[in-house]
């Protein structure tokens, strides 16, 4: 007979669960990263190898690729749990629903946002991005990627009951991602041209604070509705 677990220990247990599941499918857990790399390499192939052109494009391409890679791994957030009935079980744990969503968003970020930070410098080199701009890229990714995961969680929670929601999901989520994209790519672009980036970075920070406080609640409510 032990105590009913507290909120933090539940959050920990949920994250541990999802990381364990990811570990069991290592090949899949690496996939957002791989997708990021592949999309970034597609562009030179589609656009030609001119270094000058590539450098100009680099901020936009890197950020669009990061955004797509975050978006495409969103669907896995709840999908298998929904299919095998685990999601119903999760909704019946004696904790507020937003905890589930928060745990899912955190795991998504750990698996899709964080690894990008490690690989982004390499890809930025491929696209001939200058050094200071790479630093700014990392900062924008560090601030922006969690926002993508959190906003994404709302979208997935809304579409989880629908089969083949995949691309419907992108339709819902992409418009919300656009501010992040504009600020992120804009900051890197400014840095590459030697301009100051303070304004964009603080807006990104504000978006992050906003998303952390609001997204879990919205996503929790969405989840309860769409599982019924």
């Amino acid at each position, binding site marked *: 007979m032990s105590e009913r677990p507290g909120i933090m220990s539940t959050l920990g247990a949920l994250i541990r669960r999802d990381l364990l599941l990811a570990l069991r499918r290592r090949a899949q857990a690496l996939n957002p990263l791989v997708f990021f790399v592949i999309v970034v390499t597609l562009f030179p192939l589609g656009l030609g190898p001119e270094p000058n052109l590539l450098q100009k494009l680099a901020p936009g391409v890197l950020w669009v690729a990061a955004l797509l890679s975050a978006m495409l791994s969103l669907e896995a957030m709840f999908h298998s749990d929904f299919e*095998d*009935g685990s999601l*119903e079980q999760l909704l019946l744990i004696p904790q507020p629903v937003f905890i589930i969503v928060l745990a899912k968003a955190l795991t998504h970020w750990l698996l899709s946002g964080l690894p990008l930070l490690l690989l982004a410098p390499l890809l930025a080199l491929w696209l001939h991005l200058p050094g200071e701009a790479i630093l700014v890229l990392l900062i924008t990714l560090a601030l922006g990627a969690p926002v993508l995961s959190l906003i994404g969680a709302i979208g997935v929670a809304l579409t989880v009951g629908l089969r083949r929601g995949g691309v419907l999901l992108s339709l819902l989520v992409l418009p919300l991602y656009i501010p992040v994209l504009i600020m992120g790519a804009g900051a890197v672009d400014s840095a590459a041209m030697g301009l100051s980036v303070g304004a964009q970075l603080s807006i990104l920070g504000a978006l992050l604070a906003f998303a952390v406080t609001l997204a879990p609640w919205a996503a929790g409510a969405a989840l309860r509705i769409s599982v019924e």
Partner: protein
Amino acid sequence: MSRNAAHPARVNPMGASVRQSPREYDSLVAGGEGQPALTAENLACERGDRLLFSGLNVSLGAGNLMLVEGPNGSGKTSLLRILCGLAQPSAGVVRWRGEEVGRSRERYCAELMYLGHNHGVKGDLSPCENLQIACALAGVKSGVTPEEALYEVGLAGFEDAPARILSAGQRRRVALARLLTAEARLWVLDEPFTALDTDGVMLVEKMLERHLARGGMALVSTHHEVRVTEVNIIRLELY
């Protein structure tokens, strides 16, 4: 062609088991002993354009087993999901210890175990890990360890294989083991006998008997006869 031999790993010692203590559940706090803990008044459920049921009253007290019976499509699953708070009725309220379950969701869930058509066993995790996670997330733990629970449901030897490779009935047994590791007052089981062999059916019956004897409650939808002795069976006939 036909061979006959008992399968040693599946001999199930539930009857003789001493692992799960026959201790009573803590007596119900609100409402007092004997008062029904789960009540629902005037429930109605409409799916699409069809009214599945209406004016349905449910009340379930300690030691009671309610069997929800009815032909295919009569609304058993819909009713159970409503009683768990997973779906909203189109009319009526469900109360747990006098409180609406929509309001006191977390307290209700701490004492509830639900087993649906899809039982939520993760194929990528081993049965043992599945149970450990269920344990970490559940309300009150019963003190039965995952290993013990798996032994009880006849899965000794399969603790560490990924659940994906188990057969339909074996996966169902993993889900059943969850009932043993948690100290849930109310079990809601939607066709728990699906995919189980005769041993498995007996196992569930034993588990139910023991649960009820300890003062638990159970809501079971089924097309089978449930052979449990000495318990208060309420039948709810949907049609």
